[in-house]
């Protein structure tokens, strides 16, 4: 019934009906669904490569200060000596050298390597936390809509339609711009405020995508007989929701969360590019791209942050697709 695996799995399936205790001699290893998914994932080299890059990116973001300490210069340190004063561009075109791995920025000569590394922090932090926010809201709303049905479902489903029809980008630009003015009232300021705002805006408006999937899954799970079995045993609503239905939703939640992260990376980059995200001088990939547009004669300035976004998005997408194939082999192919 599951994908053919190696010998022990086959032995378990070929086991005769009704093994009486003590008859079977050799021990047969049971496998949980998680173990089976892991075995499937291990055979998917593309997904593994994606996972490897994802892990690498997370490590880079976590240890950014260390990495920059070894291989670069502080991200906001000016290096005017690297700039050709007549053109305001880096000496020698890009300034790439053993000291400046990705070269330097035009105008002020900041170390591009350090800025890309620090940019990973902002990008991943916002993408992760926004995804967490979306997943939490989406799961709660989706499960409620699917499980309770009736008017609850109607209200939540219409709410999702409204959110999905929202001109999100325009609204996000306006919201970040407006809320950014209320530094005193909100009690936070600077980058912290901007990061929180971006997490909120990106996370809060993306929940319907997860919500719809979870609602559909819950609808179909609710009709399965094991839910009736629990009810006929006298289980209450919370038991059915948390013990019977929720464990079956972990796979889709995990998959769509992984696929939502790259979308959020792109969205954060887009907002920073448009100038409503994190403000200079803090390094972000989107912000760097926005700067780079003005210096199209120095292509490396656009290349490195652009590649960083591209690789991040690609890695998460490949990993997410592989995860979906591994956790739910029926959904594709």
């Amino acid at each position, binding site marked *: 019934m599951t994908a053919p695996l190696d010998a022990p799995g086959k032995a378990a399936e070929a086991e005769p009906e009704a093994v*009486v*205790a003590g008859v079977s001699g050799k021990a047969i290893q*049971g496998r949980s669904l998680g173990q089976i998914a892991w075995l499937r994932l291990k055979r998917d080299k593309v997904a593994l490569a994606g996972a490897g890059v994802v892990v690498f990116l997370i490590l880079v973001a976590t240890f950014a200060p260390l990495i920059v300490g070894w291989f670069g210069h502080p991200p906001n340190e000016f290096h005017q000596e690297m700039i050709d004063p007549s053109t305001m561009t880096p000496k020698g075109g890009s300034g790439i050298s053993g000291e400046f791995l990705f070269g330097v920025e035009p105008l002020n000569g900041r170390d591009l390597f350090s800025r890309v590394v620090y940019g990973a922090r902002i990008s991943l932090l916002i993408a992760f936390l926004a995804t967490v926010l979306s997943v939490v809201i989406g799961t709660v709303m989706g499960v409620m809509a699917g499980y309770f049905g009736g008017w609850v479902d109607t209200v939540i489903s219409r709410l999702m339609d409204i959110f999905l029809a929202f001109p999100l980008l325009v609204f996000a630009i306006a919201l970040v711009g407006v809320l950014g003015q209320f530094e005193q009232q909100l009690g936070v300021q600077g980058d912290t405020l901007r990061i929180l705002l971006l997490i909120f805006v990106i996370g809060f408006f993306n929940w319907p995508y997860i919500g719809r999937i979870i609602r559909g899954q819950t609808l179909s799970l609710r009709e399965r007989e094991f839910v009736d079995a629990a009810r006929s045993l006298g289980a209450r609503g919370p038991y059915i929701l948390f013990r019977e239905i929720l464990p079956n939703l972990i796979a889709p939640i995990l998959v769509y969360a992984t696929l939502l992260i790259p979308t959020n990376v792109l969205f954060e980059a887009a907002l920073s590019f448009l100038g409503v995200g994190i403000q200079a001088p803090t390094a972000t990939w989107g912000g760097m791209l926005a700067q780079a547009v003005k210096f199209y004669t120095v292509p490396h300035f656009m290349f490195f942050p652009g590649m960083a976004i591209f690789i991040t998005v690609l890695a998460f997408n490949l990993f997410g697709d592989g995860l979906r194939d591994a956790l739910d082999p029926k959904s594709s192919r």
Partner: protein
Amino acid sequence: MSEPLLSVQGLEKHFPVTKGLFKRQVGAVRAVDGVSFDVFKGETIGLVGESGCGKTTTGRLITRLIEPTGGKVVFEGNDITHMSQSRIRPLRRDMQLIFQDPYSSLNPRHTVGAIVGAPFRIQGVKTEQGIKKEVQDILALVGLNPEHYNRYPHEFSGGQRQRIGIARTLALKPKLIIADEPVSALDVSIQAQVVNLLEDLQNELDLTYVVIAHDLSVVRHISDRVAVMYLGKIVELADRKSLYDAPMHPYTNALLSAVPIPDVKHRGDRERIRLQGDVPSPLNPPPACRFHTRCWKAQVVCKTEEPPLVELAPGHQVACHFPENADKISAPAAAKVARNVQDAQHPKGTIA
């Protein structure tokens, strides 16, 4: 006989059919429309009928998975028809349900131990040697390896899964088990194993069964008494032997004639009754006798007067104006039937 363990009286379930924005009710599917029977301790009662005749709905009404529209369900002297879920919870220990589809009735994310142990946790039952020991004993009882405690349902075959389902049902040592098509999703060879297991368990644990099935041979094998349903009503209720040997309701007769005969030489011995047309919709069932649209014996009276379910022979209840096997009918009932037949031949008003 003594007090019945379960008594179902005039049970009804009408599923509303709604239309439009304001959910205006435009009709009702009469899935179960006045079903009555008693189940006595230690017996097995079979509930047979075509798809859509309301067998499964009846089972779910008895276990209160769905709310009855009318009638009464009395279990061990308690009227549970409209009892609140919190009051019915302790009673659920004594009344359990076996499900049809062993692939859907076990949660794929739970281990066998968690599935079979769930009744203890849900009902808050304390066990002497811990839940694990108890669960392993039950697994051994249904013929599964107790060491499979930590395995997941996907590691088992269909028959093994059904055994897991049965183990869960048995966990709290219920008095009454309602088996909803317990073997129809299984291979024929496995069906026999599971049916025999159910019988063994009955002898061992003193169980009472209500077996819902569409397979007449399975029901014949396992039941003491059999109820035949048609469009939400019981048309015939009798002990196994008299029902299979001398069915009185034409519908039962037609059903039995459709059971394949394994021996080729004897195929000619019995006449196959072919019913005309489809089962009418329970949304708009035919008036009076619901079977009259397909019955070859139907007369005017069948379309105007509903035949009550009455005892025509000892322990043999039939709802028909013109029952078959008339020689088995006991004397007082025979007179009534004879009058029906006479009326049909000379309908009132046409006699000069």
